[in-house]
């Protein structure tokens, strides 16, 4: 028989559901003060829940201020990987996450990304769960078992 979830696990689940639902619906990743207000929980508890989620690799916190950097695939700040979907603009931290936004939303999407080398604009498009426009190649610099050693670089 499994143990019942702890308070932190219960709050972390509520925070996770709120953060991802809000990021998908609004194209804006909520931060601790927003989450605190929405859930009616102290901000310190919310921050503890965010650290719990980050430890579980559910989302990524910025190293300097502890804010959410990415509720991946949704990046909290503008990046070079822009996703237009449902009349909104989202950002991913990499090309995989930009494609992941289309997958998570379950909607058609146009992804604009620069060539990592020369910066030329490139475009991918997802329609009806198919990649219907494609160019270039995707490079993984880091072997799979080291992806989370430095997820920012990965």
């Amino acid at each position, binding site marked *: 028989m499994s143990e019942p979830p702890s308070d932190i696990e219960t709050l972390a689940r509520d925070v*996770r*559901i709120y953060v*991802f*639902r809000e*990021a*998908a619906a609004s194209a804006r990743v909520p931060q601790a003060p927003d989450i605190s207000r929405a859930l009616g929980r102290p901000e310190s508890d919310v921050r503890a829940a965010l650290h719990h989620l980050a430890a*579980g*690799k*559910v989302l990524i916190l910025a190293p300097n201020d502890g804010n959410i950097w990415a509720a*991946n*695939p949704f990046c909290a700040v503008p990046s070079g990987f822009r996703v237009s979907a449902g009349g909104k603009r989202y950002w991913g931290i*990499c*090309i*995989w*996450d930009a*494609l*992941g*936004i*289309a*997958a*998570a*939303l*379950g909607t058609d999407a146009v992804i604009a*990304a*620069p*060539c*990592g*080398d*020369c910066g*030329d604009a*490139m475009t*991918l498009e*997802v329609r009806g*769960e198919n*990649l219907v426009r*494609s*160019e*270039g*190649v*995707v*490079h*993984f*610099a*880091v*072997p*799979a*078992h080291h992806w989370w050693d430095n997820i920012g670089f*990965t």
Partner: protein
Amino acid sequence: MLLFRDEGHVDRWCEARDLTRGATITPEQAWRLAYGWYKDKVQPQWRRHTVDEAEALLSSVGLNDAFWNLRG
């Protein structure tokens, strides 16, 4: 994971940074990976993939060699 115009641009990017070249996949493979990885992420019942599930996803798009080994 970055998108590049072609393999030559990957080589140039790695050389400029003195980095060992990693692995390249097609955008179609990347889409299928992203779809399998993230399609449930906003759902309340989402849970992390197990290593077995992640390996199966990588394998399903033809990524089986050592670079894609998740167990180190």
